[in-house]
């Protein structure tokens, strides 16, 4: 810290020293024009120095944290390439689900993919009669890619980092929908046995993914 302060003081002195105006000479007319000339020369010097120096390149002036409104999702390893529906929060507190069996629902009241935090998407594992879009979600492995695009084709690629199965009643919902500094995308589907009385599977599968750094 002392060193820093010392440095700060030093530069203060240095700079003050070299650019102090010579205003005391101003009373004498003969010298005043000279002063102006000097001042002009000084200005020239400053200007030329600023053009001589090369401004640094490759600066990143804005964080890419706007995120996108996703319209399609692609998971190459599972040969999934489908459209995204917006879903919300149901009156009973559940995350909504897509109407289609082959589409994926994005929780659009929450985080946008590419923004800091956990964006969440859900897809059905099965319909009443057969497999649905996320039937094979369980097969995803660490490193597999999940690609989402917005309507203008802006593309974000996420990478699988983890997968967990939870009891549907004790799943860490707060965590799955929480803020985070990095951009994440969590995919949810059902798994485990189907409880006919409750009309739902006993477990939920969550695939955790993180945004890959732009290449």
């Amino acid at each position, binding site marked *: *810290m002392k060193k*820093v*302060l010392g*440095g*700060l003081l030093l*530069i*203060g002195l*240095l*700079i*003050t020293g070299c*650019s102090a105006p010579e205003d005391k000479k101003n009373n004498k007319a003969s010298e005043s024009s000279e002063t102006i000339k000097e001042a002009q020369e000084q200005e020239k010097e400053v200007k030329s120095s*600023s*053009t001589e120096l*090369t401004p*640094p390149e490759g*600066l*990143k*002036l804005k*964080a890419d944290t706007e995120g996108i409104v996703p319209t399609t999702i692609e998971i190459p390893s599972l040969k999934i390439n489908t459209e995204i529906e917006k*879903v919300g*929060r*149901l009156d009973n507190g*559940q995350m*909504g*689900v897509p109407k289609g069996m082959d589409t994926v*629902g994005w*929780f659009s*009241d929450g985080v946008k993919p590419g923004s*800091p935090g956990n964006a969440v998407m*859900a*897809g*059905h*594992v099965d*319909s*009443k*009669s*057969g497999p*649905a879009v*996320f039937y094979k979600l369980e097969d995803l492995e660490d490193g597999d890619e999940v690609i989402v695009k917005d309507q203008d084709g802006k593309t974000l690629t996420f990478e699988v980092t983890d997968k967990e199965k*939870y009891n549907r009643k004790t*799943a860490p*919902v*707060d965590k799955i*929908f*929480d*803020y*985070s*500094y990095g951009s994440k995308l969590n995919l949810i*589907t*059902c*798994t*485990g*046995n*189907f409880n*006919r009385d409750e*009309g739902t*599977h*006993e477990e*939920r599968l969550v695939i955790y993914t993180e945004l890959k*750094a732009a290449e």
Partner: protein
Amino acid sequence: MKMKKALLAVPLSVSLLIPTFTVANAHGHENHSKGPMSAEVSNPAIDLRASLDTLLSEHAFLAVVAMQKGIDGKEDFEAAAGQLNQNTEALSKAVGSVYGEEAGAQFKEIWSSHIGYFVDYVTATAENNEEGRKQALAELDKYRVTQADFLDKATEGRLKAADLEEGLKVHVDQLIWAFESYRTGDYDKAYDNISEAMHHMFMTGKGLSWAITDQFPDKFENKSVDTPAADLRADLNSVFSAHAALAALTMQKGIDGAKDFEAAAAELNENTDDITAAVESVYGAEGAAQFKEIWSSHIGYFVDYVTATAEQNEEGKKQAVAELDEYRMEQAKFLDTATEGRLKAADLEEGLKVHVDQLLAAFNSYTSKDYPDAYKNISEAYAHMFGVGQSLSGAIVDQFPDKFAGQKPSDMPKTGMGGMSQSTNDAILWSLFGLILASATTAMILRRKATNHS
């Protein structure tokens, strides 16, 4: 790097950081909130977020000012740099109160180093030393790695080094670019970058406070920093604090007759537009137009004060102060009405008096060359605005609770209908039923097809 696991020191962070907001309470907002917890603008977690936002964004502002003053060889350079160091001190204390003194000291060393490299960059620029500038940038690159590593370890991976390095790159680059634009006379760009640089730190503040509250939930009453109400408070904090910062700097540039005065004033006006947009989103276009007129008037009176000072016109100064007094009443009345009495005109007048007096004091200290006092006042004026943000967001959230209700699901989605799954009971029967259903559907489809064909 040893992080203390026993975090007895955490409660200190609260006591340490709260003084920032005593001003806010004084002109204050009573807590009207009776609604759900998610709609509160103040709790230990959200307060931590606001405190970190204050310190981090003020760092960005002071760094830019110090760099400008440095390259210009201005007399107030030392005081600006001194205030920047005090900010580092406060930030390090906050870190120390969470992660222990040792970590706080480590943080301070790392954080101070990057300020040092900025100074190196300015010095090298002043000396026309291209090599020195490159060297400083290279050091800043190394700093990013060290700083990111420190925070990754401290937060036990909640903040990832790779993400942090990105975030720090933006911070460093914004400051460098604000400086480069300034020295080459591209003042509009310079001031755009100042605003961006300050605003960027609010994201850092959210990230850091999120990590800390996630790491020590019981120290923060298990509250979240990520609620719509907390975001509103942060958004208002951001625009109001930028107002104070830009106003103080613009007044300095005005009295100095500096070349960047107009760009600074233009940025201040853009900030007024930002605040107006925020007001409009809550109170509609008509209210916003009214607000803008009143708000802009007080900036005008500050300009009058600066002009009168430049002309050594005591009468003009008095006149400007009288106008500011009237402004306070009008502004207070507006906000009292808009918030339906949640913010009381009398309290608001008091709060606005503090704001006006701090800016005038900062300016008067500057013109009388008492620079440390000038920057002390600027710092206080800056922190004061976070109280304004808290009060106003509190009133708005109380007034429109529906807009700020918790919006996250409390339960997992129901993403299956069982067609491909084992049932927990009567599995066979169920699949039989499924089969019947399936064949029935098939039959129906076939029939429909037949009908279509006919």
